[in-house]
């Protein structure tokens, strides 16, 4: 399994292909439904440095605040990414993101955006909230906690060997398209229909 350090260059990301296993280390940020809408409403200068050349993780964690006021993630798997399809390509282009982590894959607009901007879609294992929380040793900062609540806030986190698989790359490759097409062919066969 290859290690990928964050922040990461466009060139390194363009070298990645569908099927690559990666372990991510470095700084990333979480953001899901409310965050994506908010990031596109206007340019969020205060958050922009935390998005540049790193990845956004579609995740609504369970978080504990310790006695000293610091935060820790105690369950932190990915949420379904397709809900961010209307925003994702624009968020990537506007803030210079190099990737997205989520589950379930995304559609054509995002796939085109990955090619245009030089970014990848990284699939984490859905529901593996304990395995993934343990790869997040530190929570650095949080944006919009009061407004969005714990699951929807933007958490700046440090990850250590966070496991993901490239399922959409910057060359137009999508494992999700391949699997969906194969399943539809089989479905037609099971229903006795011609494809």
């Amino acid at each position, binding site marked *: 399994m290859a290690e990928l350090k964050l922040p990461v260059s466009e060139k390194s990301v363009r070298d990645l292909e569908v099927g690559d296993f990666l372990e991510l280390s470095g700084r990333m940020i979480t953001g899901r439904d409310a965050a994506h809408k908010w990031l596109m409403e206007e340019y969020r200068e205060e958050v922009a440095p935390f998005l540049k050349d790193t990845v956004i993780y579609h995740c*609504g964690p369970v978080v504990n605040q310790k006695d000293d006021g610091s935060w820790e993630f105690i*369950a932190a798997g990915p949420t379904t990414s397709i809900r961010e399809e209307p925003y994702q390509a624009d968020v990537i282009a506007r803030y210079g993101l190099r990737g997205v982590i989520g589950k379930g894959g995304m559609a054509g607009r995002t796939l085109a955006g990955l090619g245009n901007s030089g970014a990848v879609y990284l699939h984490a294992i859905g*529901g*593996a909230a304990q395995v993934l929380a343990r790869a997040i040793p530190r929570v650095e900062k949080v944006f919009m906690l009061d407004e969005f609540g714990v699951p929807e806030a933007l958490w700046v986190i440090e990850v250590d060997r966070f496991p993901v*698989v490239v399922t959409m790359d910057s060359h137009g490759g999508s494992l999700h398209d391949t699997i*969906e097409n194969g399943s539809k062919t*089989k479905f037609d066969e099971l*229903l006795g229909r011609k494809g």
Partner: protein
Amino acid sequence: MFEQVDLKETFTELVRRASTDLPGEVVDAIRAGRNVEEDGSLAQKALDTILTNIVMADESSAPLCQDTGTPVVWIKYPVGVSTRRLEADFTEAVRRATKLKYLRPNAVDTLTGRNTGNGTGRAIPSIHFEEWDGPGLEVKMILKGGGSENVGAQYKLPDTGLEAGRDLEGVRRVVLDAVVQAQGKGCAPGVLAICIGGDRVSSFEHSKEQLLRSLGDTNPNPELAELEKRLMAEANELGIGPMGFGGKTTVLGVKIGVLDRLPACYFVTVTYMCWADRRAIVQIDEEGGLTWLS
């Protein structure tokens, strides 16, 4: 009645068990899936990670999945027990479990977008009551995640596009369609909980109730038992696999229930449950004795 038992504490423990400890037969089904996937495949790696996660959650008493879902609860109670009190106690248990981080604050005001912060809200938890002849209480709950809830579907037969008529062959066709539409987005491998018949509301409710059945049970109706088996085999031929990575393990189980219907209506409702098929049961006898089941 039930003064000897602290119901709020008992319900909090029920929530903890559901959120952190998967029923044994679900773990067995995931392990069986893992063993039929090709060595070194993405599918096998995904299931290995899931199996590791299950052990970690149980050992550290922490949520299996950060989306701790909607607590959906079925309570059977004897004559004379106040359902308002039971509802208040269960709702308080959800608040406590949220504070203890067994649950994520998971209720959002739909109009303002603000998280209520305590895990409860309008229709959260969702509690169903049934008076019975027994002397004790039986409380069954599932935690129903949102990602899998989004890929659930309700069909009305006939469905011309799928050439699905008002018979079990029609049911088969639309259920397979639901699996294809879901792909990996509901955190496959999932459990298909199905209701045939009912109205739009009762059909969804009854489909969710199928999740209280053990994965290994056999449907008492032989025709439905046959259909459950066939759908399981065919869904696993679709090649969607764990997380939609491709592979042989797309569903872990298929459970079908039936309600009667109006002449005009023939609904088929598919509730999709993620691999984190969380369920917990407690029986409370009149002396306050507790029996924990899953």
